[in-house]
């Protein structure tokens, strides 16, 4: 009990912080050595495509995929990227609302715009449907494209799919949303993520804590301050011990 009381508090905190920082110090040492040898370890050339790591960088899609299918083609959307089969077609924040075949032309409708494409995926035309509400569905009825708006009004296209005329509401089959098969989904995910992230970026962000966002940076700031404390408290204890040993020697000599 008396022995415990004699301990300088810096020793207690030195021990506690030391135990707390073990993993951080090992991690900082390993990542620091790796970053010192970036070229030798080819960190900038190695690309990481792991979905868990990429999700930390918010490179994975936030919204579930949307897909619509015609007889020959499938159109999909991952966030703001729209794909024709497995090829990227365009970037748009509007959501796909349906797709239908009108002979030589494919009509792809987004929430506000009508996009006309050839069967090779070439852009023929794109224009907004000048309506106050968003598009809900698209479909074909007696060889005419029909669009249903969110306000339940229905519009029929002319031969050239340029002008849309209001028509009476009727029951018809709309282009259904389909489930994206796993193979295609993986192909689209690879395109969505691009080449992935260089390993150097990830190691650097682990080292700085930035991989866990701003909170990680603050944690690493705290770790750095505690390491400074450890070095000073270690120095203090070494000095105290040295002074004690010196006074003991002096007493013995007396």
């Amino acid at each position: 009990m008396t022995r415990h009381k004699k301990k300088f508090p810096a020793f207690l905190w030195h021990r506690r912080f030391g135990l707390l920082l073990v993993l951080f110090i090992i991690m900082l040492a390993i990542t620091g050595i790796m970053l010192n040898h970036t070229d030798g370890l080819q960190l900038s050339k190695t690309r990481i495509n792991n979905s868990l790591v990429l999700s930390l960088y918010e490179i994975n899609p936030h919204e579930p995929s949307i897909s619509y299918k015609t007889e020959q083609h499938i159109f999909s959307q991952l966030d703001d990227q729209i794909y024709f089969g497995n090829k990227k077609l365009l970037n748009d924040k509007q959501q796909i609302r349906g797709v239908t075949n009108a002979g030589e032309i494919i009509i792809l409708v987004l929430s506000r715009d009508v996009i006309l494409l050839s069967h090779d995926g070439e852009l023929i035309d794109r224009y907004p449907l000048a309506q106050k509400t968003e598009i809900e569905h698209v479909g074909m009825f007696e060889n005419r494209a029909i669009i249903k708006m969110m306000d339940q009004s229905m519009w029929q296209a002319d031969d050239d799919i340029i002008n849309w005329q209001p028509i009476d509401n009727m029951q018809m089959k709309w282009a259904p949303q389909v489930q994206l098969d796993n193979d295609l989904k993986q192909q689209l995910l690879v395109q969505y993520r691009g080449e992935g992230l260089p390993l150097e970026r990830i190691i650097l962000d682990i080292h700085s804590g930035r991989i866990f966002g701003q909170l990680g940076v603050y944690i690493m700031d705290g770790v750095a301050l505690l390491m400074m404390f450890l070095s000073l408290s270690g120095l203090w204890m070494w000095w105290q011990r040295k002074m004690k040993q010196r006074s003991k020697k002096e007493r013995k000599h007396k």
Partner: protein
Amino acid sequence: MIFTRFIFITLCFIQLPAFAGGQFLEPDQFIRMAFPQNQPKAKALWLRKNDRENIKQILAHDFRKLRLRYWQQDKKSAWILEEIGKEKPITIGVVINNGKIENIKVLAFRESRGDEIRHDFFTKQFLQATLTNDMQLDRHIDGISGATLSVRAITKVSRIALYLDQQLSTKK
């Protein structure tokens, strides 16, 4: 009191981020303005390879569309076209009458800067402009400092509209 004054003066000098974007005119409204008596139906101009090459040359970048919508009555045609200013597309409506620009309006501007091009003091420079043989406007358009890319975009769109109107005349 001094502290409150300090906060007030500081807030006066803080510059909030500018946002100049917005939809100024719906395409339908623009077409109604262009043809007040009787609004014609939209038609499609299918672009030949040569047309696409010329548009590409005016834009100085790729052009992907195969056809463009237009509205026409007698010698007057109206076009609604888009061109990127700095990062986002600017939607511009152009009315051509007898080969000359009769009206040009910015319908939607999505960039954060450079929307001065929508004002009449700037767009009136385009009125009655025609296209030269080398697909340039027949006059110099004075720029606006801080809106260089938007000025470039509207100038390109005006040249394309004049070019497309010429193609309608040659097709007849």
